[in-house]
């Protein structure tokens, strides 16, 4: 019973994070939203695995926590390199 409430809360937060991903003016807002969605997914799997009485599914939560972390770092590195390359091109262009 309590599981329903928690799952509804987590799903509502996922919807809010999705709204931030769609709205966010800068690209970092969207990265923030993706990171939030990732951790919400981990929490949802952890709770729902108990709710559906399948504790072996917790491996999914751990995998997803890993992949989310690495994905966010990769995306940020990528934006940093792009910003720096643009800065270098502008300096060359002056």
């Amino acid at each position, binding site marked *: 019973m309590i599981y329903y409430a928690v799952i509804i809360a987590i799903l509502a937060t996922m919807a809010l994070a999705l709204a931030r991903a769609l709205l966010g*003016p800068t690209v970092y807002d969207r990265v923030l939203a993706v990171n939030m969605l990732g*951790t919400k997914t981990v929490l949802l799997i952890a709770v729902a695995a108990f709710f559906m009485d399948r504790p072996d599914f917790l491996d999914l939560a751990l995998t997803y926590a890993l992949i989310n972390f690495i994905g966010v770092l990769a995306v940020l590195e990528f934006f940093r390199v792009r910003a720096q390359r643009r800065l270098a091109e502008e300096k060359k262009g002056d």
Partner: protein
Amino acid sequence: MTFIVDAASWVLLTLGGFFVLVGGIGALRMPDLYTRMHAASITDSLGSMLIIAGVILQAGFTLAAVKLAAILVFLLFTSPTAANALASAALLAGINPGLAAPWRHEPRS
């Protein structure tokens, strides 16, 4: 005894759900990128601690509880790191926090 454990886990799960929701609303309504990051990090640390603690109480002394503890430790290590990396990257890209001028140099999107 099991009633106490059940009640404790209910309380933890409810509080956790509440904080997760608060963080989500904060991420949507806050005015600036950095304030949104602050709101989102509430869900990542406090919300996840409470929810996973609640589920561990339900699990008892099984392998599942060990896995949940591992997930919690992992989340506690990595979500602050990701938030730090995000804030640092945004600052390097030139996005200024709210009260100062909007962009440090040209806006990058």
